[in-house]
């Protein structure tokens, strides 16, 4: 095809969908400006590398946490506003397990303080030497407990809260999930206290300085762990969805629930596995994020819920692969936006993109491909 062809198509696109065309133009302008900034040295390559790395870390978390949100949104048909607090609950459970094991089951500090993740400043992660390198067993146990705790929480909540009103409208379930979020979040404060705690030993994290054109970018073991865990889990999920009967059933149910039921798919069982997979992934994601972030507090994942929503909406509700891709996009937007706007507004930028996608293309950027 010739130049005039693509010119013609571009013109049609511009006329048919001016808002989307404007978004594309904004994106291209920003990309060109980024190249210019890098070329003239206004932004250093190494600075940019750090931003890119942070964006990747956040994006992996958003993607992994978003899978569960996306699955419940499409299979149970409601926006779960308690998803963030579910992650917080799982993370507290996981970090508590890490504390208990790293603290020698009460030999280094009172067992109560360890179980409560050092509530009230009674014991600190740095004192216990917590880190992937320094206490690998404790961290491994923490990952498992975080997943188990999130799954248990999700199943209990589903059994007593969502299951009795399964047949009601999505709005009813949404409002109910706001109630769940409230109860869960403040129960966590009630038990673990309102303090923000550092949960790792920053001096015990090995890192390497990767040389970039005009400087270096530090990559530490916790970042590599987050990356490895996220990629392994995503691949595992891909295998599960594509190769197993359960995966096929889940995809069928996301596509058309009535049809799935008619073909004899046990929908309640699929719903249960939806919660298990979604909450398990979210719990692990939350725990790894806490390790990377080095801090833990009671509304940490509530305040990250909206970016996760943004990721899910961007990728198209119901699409697992979309959630992963959307998560990466939102992660990069949040960290790269500081190149152009003040850092305080980076989350605002992510939300505005989410709103723009909802307005322009509510089916997501990978429309028409609901994979699970």
């Amino acid at each position, binding site marked *: 095809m010739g130049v005039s062809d693509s010119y013609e198509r571009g013109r049609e696109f511009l006329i048919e969908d001016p808002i989307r065309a404007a978004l594309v133009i904004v994106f291209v302008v920003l990309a060109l400006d980024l190249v210019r900034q890098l070329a003239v040295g206004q932004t250093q390559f190494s600075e940019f590398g750090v931003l890119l790395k942070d964006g990747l870390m956040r994006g992996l978390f958003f993607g992994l946490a978003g899978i569960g949100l996306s699955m419940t949104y499409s299979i149970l048909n409601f926006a779960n506003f308690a998803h963030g607090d579910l992650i917080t609950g799982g993370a507290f459970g996981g970090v508590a397990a890490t504390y208990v094991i790293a603290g020698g089951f009460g030999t280094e500090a009172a067992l109560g303080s360890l179980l409560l993740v050092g509530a009230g400043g009674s014991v600190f992660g740095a004192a216990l030497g917590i880190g992937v390198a320094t206490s690998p067993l404790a961290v491994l146990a923490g990952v498992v407990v975080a997943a188990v705790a999130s799954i248990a929480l999700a199943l209990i909540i589903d059994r007593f809260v969502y299951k009795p009103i399964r047949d009601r409208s999505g709005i009813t379930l949404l*409002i*109910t999930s706001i*109630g769940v979020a*409230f109860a869960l979040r403040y129960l966590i404060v009630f038990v673990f206290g309102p303090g923000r705690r550092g949960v790792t030993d920053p001096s015990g994290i090995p890192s390497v300085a990767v040389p970039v054109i005009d400087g270096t970018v530090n990559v530490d073991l916790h970042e590599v762990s987050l990356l490895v865990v996220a990629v392994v889990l995503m691949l595992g999920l891909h295998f599960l969805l594509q190769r197993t009967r359960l995966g096929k059933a889940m995809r069928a149910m996301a596509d058309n629930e009535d049809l799935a039921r008619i073909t004899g798919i046990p929908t309640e069982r699929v719903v249960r596995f939806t919660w298990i997979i979604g909450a398990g992934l979210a719990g692990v994601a939350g725990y790894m994020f806490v390790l990377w972030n080095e801090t833990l507090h009671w509304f940490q994942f509530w305040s990250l819920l909206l970016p996760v929503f943004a990721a899910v909406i961007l990728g198209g509700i119901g699409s697992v692969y979309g959630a992963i891709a959307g998560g990466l996009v939102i992660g990069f937007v949040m960290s790269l936006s500081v190149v152009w706007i003040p850092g305080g507004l980076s*989350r605002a930028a992510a939300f505005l993109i989410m709103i723009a996608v*909802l*307005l322009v293309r509510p089916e997501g950027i990978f429309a028409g491909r609901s994979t699970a």
Partner: protein
Amino acid sequence: MSGAEQSADDRGTLAAVWEQDAVKLTALVSGLFAAYVVGGLLLSYGLRQQLNELAQLSFFIAVFAMLALALNLHWGYTGLFNIGVIGFMGIGIYTTAILSKGATLTEPAAGTTGGFGLPLWIGIIGGVVAAGLFGGLVALPALRLRADYFAIVTVGLSEVVRFTLLEQSLQQGQVLGYWVGLGGGSGLLLDFDPVDRLLGAFGLLESYTRFSERTGEAIGIGSNPKPVFDGILYGLVLLVFLVGFYVLLTRVGSSPYGRVLKAIREDEDATKALGKDTDRFKIKAFVIGCALMGLGGILLYASQGAITPNAFRPRITFFVWIALIIGGAGSNTGSVMGGAIFAAVLYQGPIFFSNVIEGSFEIDAVNTFAQAVGPLAAADPVPLLAYTVDNIGQLRFVIMGLVLIYLMHNRPEGILGHRKETASTIPLGRRRAKTGGSPPATDGGEENRGVDGE
């Protein structure tokens, strides 16, 4: 329910039903006040503390009732799922603050940004208009979205508002020679006292001050009695505003315009098919509701002396939602009742209750949950109870969440039962009723689709 048959009869019965509502409302509010007075007596509060407590109670009842009424226009009447209430409140009070703070023409010290020094009433009007305009800005593109997407857009925007208020680069700057700004993370000091301004406008401030000092001395509430009277007066002013909200929204609801809104809630396509431009109706309703939310925000924060961005978290939006759902969406009387119950029982109640307990028993609470639970092994529940009472401030939010879940499970129509006003002008009950010209039943409707089953 029972109203369905009654309201069909004639105007007289309708008036009786309405009177019942007013009676119920008065009984509810006086019951709540009485409970607080009794609690105060248990605590052997002095008169000053009693008066302060009651002033605060009426303040919160009025504020939450007003906000629930405004939200009812969105959700109860029009079916717009707005969970960004706090954003509109924030825009309202911030605009008022910037317009009405004292003018500063030289560069101020850090953290003391000024305003344009306009009279407070202009600031309030400005705040209401700004909230309404922002509502229009949101509504224009967002109204065609599905309810749950609309919810995510509104809550996202309310957070964008908060991030903007927090932003350092907007902290202060020079506009038309005035030093103004959003104050960043440290927020804005409100150097106007709404009560003083109100009295000053009528030239009553001096006589009021004298009156409060004399009366304060006469009834013995100690030195500096003016803040006590200020609180009571502000509570009363808010109750007047609440009546204004109620009358306005009830008139809107029963007007032909309000019937179209309810019709949109029931079935937007059918309303469109009847030739109504539903988008315009929805935008108007959204803008009016947002403006009222702005006013609610102004009234809530104007007397606080200072505002900081982090007070404007989505939490308050959900408070208003809980209030609305308690009372039952779709009914103005229900909204007011929900606001009153939420403020008195769920919001202020637990803290007041824990004060009563702490005042009555010698309590020495432990610091952490572990220390509280540990003694349970030795069958000693006292530390856990003490910890619970001590941390009631957090536990009340757990209770709110559980109440919301309970309501959605068992009484999604609100504690008063089916009170949703229907779109129809005529009662949808039995057909033998006379139909001419009776206003819409205050509680005559069945739920949405129940109508078909008649």
